[in-house]
């Protein structure tokens, strides 16, 4: 039974990693094919340096991911603290329901509705071009916010509200109380929210597809590439990202395992 269970787990892992393996192998392909292997070469890796379109897209992706994660973390944490303090049950419930819309809704609907808004506003203020850096940033912040709020809220609920009052009684200003008492207590939630936001932004394709205009991110470039023939350089870049994330996660896990005993929270795509 135990052996069977192990075999099962191994099979699922194989299923999860088969395409990743294929990607890594073909990134070292001598020929330009991602189907037929013709000898080992690292030319796709060295060739990446001159692929300005792809590197520009990578730059855009990182800029958007960092900015949207930072802004949504700040805005979302403030919102979570605010929501917890709201006394009107109805408005609280309403706000929570609205917050969940981008999480629950199909990405394609979110993307299109935002595109319609941006084009509408663009026309309204007479812009020649309404989509670009700012719209894709706004869109990313919008779909990141709920995830930040949802990971901070439970931590806030666990935090004793008396802590804040105690801090105030001891002469802290509300701002001081927030930074000295509340923030440390919810820091793991804030960090989880930040990482989630960063990850979601990095990988988002559908919403960026409708809102990015000329400011193309990596998933958009990859989508355009898969419309013709994908060459191994795309695989090479993905392999580099994969290894980077792998190393990052291993470190994070090792560090976290020393203190935290809780399993990681699931992330929705």
């Amino acid at each position, binding site marked *: 039974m135990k052996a069977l269970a192990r075999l*099962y787990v191994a099979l699922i892992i194989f299923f999860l990693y088969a*395409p*990743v393996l294929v990607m890594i192998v073909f990134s070292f392909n001598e020929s330009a094919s991602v189907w037929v292997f013709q000898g080992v070469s690292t030319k796709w890796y060295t060739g990446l340096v001159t692929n300005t379109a792809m590197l520009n897209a990578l730059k855009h992706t990182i800029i958007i991911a960092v900015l949207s994660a930072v802004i949504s973390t700040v805005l979302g944490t403030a919102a979570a603290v605010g929501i917890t303090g709201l006394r009107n049950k109805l408005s609280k419930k309403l706000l929570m329901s609205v917050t969940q819309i981008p*999480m629950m809704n199909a990405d394609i609907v979110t993307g299109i509705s935002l595109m319609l808004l941006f084009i509408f506003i663009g026309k309204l203020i007479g812009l020649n071009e309404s989509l670009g850096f700012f719209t894709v940033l706004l869109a990313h*912040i919008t779909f990141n916010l709920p995830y930040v709020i949802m990971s901070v809220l439970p931590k806030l609920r666990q935090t004793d509200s008396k802590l804040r009052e105690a801090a105030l009684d001891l002469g802290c200003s509300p701002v001081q109380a927030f930074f000295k008492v509340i923030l440390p207590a919810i820091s793991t939630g804030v960090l989880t929210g930040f990482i989630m936001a960063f990850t979601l932004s990095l990988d988002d394709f559908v919403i960026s597809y409708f809102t990015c205009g000329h400011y193309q991110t990596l998933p958009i470039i990859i989508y355009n590439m898969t419309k013709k023939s*994908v060459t191994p350089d795309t695989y090479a870049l993905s392999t580099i990202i994969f290894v980077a994330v792998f190393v990052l996660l291993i470190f994070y896990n090792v560090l976290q395992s020393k203190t935290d005993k809780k399993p990681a929270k*699931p992330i929705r795509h």
Partner: protein
Amino acid sequence: MKNKSLGSKLLSAPYIVWAALFIIVPLIIMLYFALTNEAGVFTLANLSEIGKYKKAFGLSILYAAIATVITLLLAYPMAYFMTKLKISSQRMLLLIVMLPMWMNFLIRTYSWISILANTGIINTFLGKLGLGPVQLMYTPGAVILGMVYDFIPYMILPIYSVMSKLDKSLLEASEDLGANAFVKFKKVILPLTRPGIISGITMVFVPSVSTFYISQKLGGNKTMLIGDAIEYLFNLGVDYYNIASAISMVLMIMILVCLFVMNRFNDDDDGGVVI
């Protein structure tokens, strides 16, 4: 105390404005498009047009449902076996399950072509064994496989996270009371892990039913799921924004109704949060 409430309002105010502007207003604009014609005149014509797309809706729901069931059947034992391992191995496995999610899903999907194509890895291997090529790509099966593959982590993780918190004493109690493995599963484990199953189902079903990439790449552009139809219409030009918005609204309402029904099955009322 009054001061606190004011502070809360001030803190949540930016977000409330944000949510109104970027969540509510876009949907209102979409609704406006859905209920008007190209000239901006109110009409219900778009809604009656939607009947023409019922096959696309039907196919999307069918494929997504099959993919969700397969994902559940694969993920549930996986999550169960994971909880049986040492804590350190569990942590490692969790990492392994999550890692592919950090990679671009377009590339991961595309890699399946290398495996499934007529000239791909499986068929090359079969060819070496003297077996004829099997048509694996460009079939409904390939599309469903793509959905299962892309979204299975979203099923494993919530089920695992519920399962790992199961109270072991309950299981022992049921064994003491003479329950066999099947009864134990049906009466104890399954009901207790239901919240995980439900959030897993929603997290797999929603992206599957609205996808427009998987069906194009793995299905050889031969079908038109509802996501493909929306994308196609939007790319034809402004003339089609009205009908495409109407289809999007229906898709959204359908998804929200599904989620609402799913949540009814979920006793765990945590403020309506599905995750």
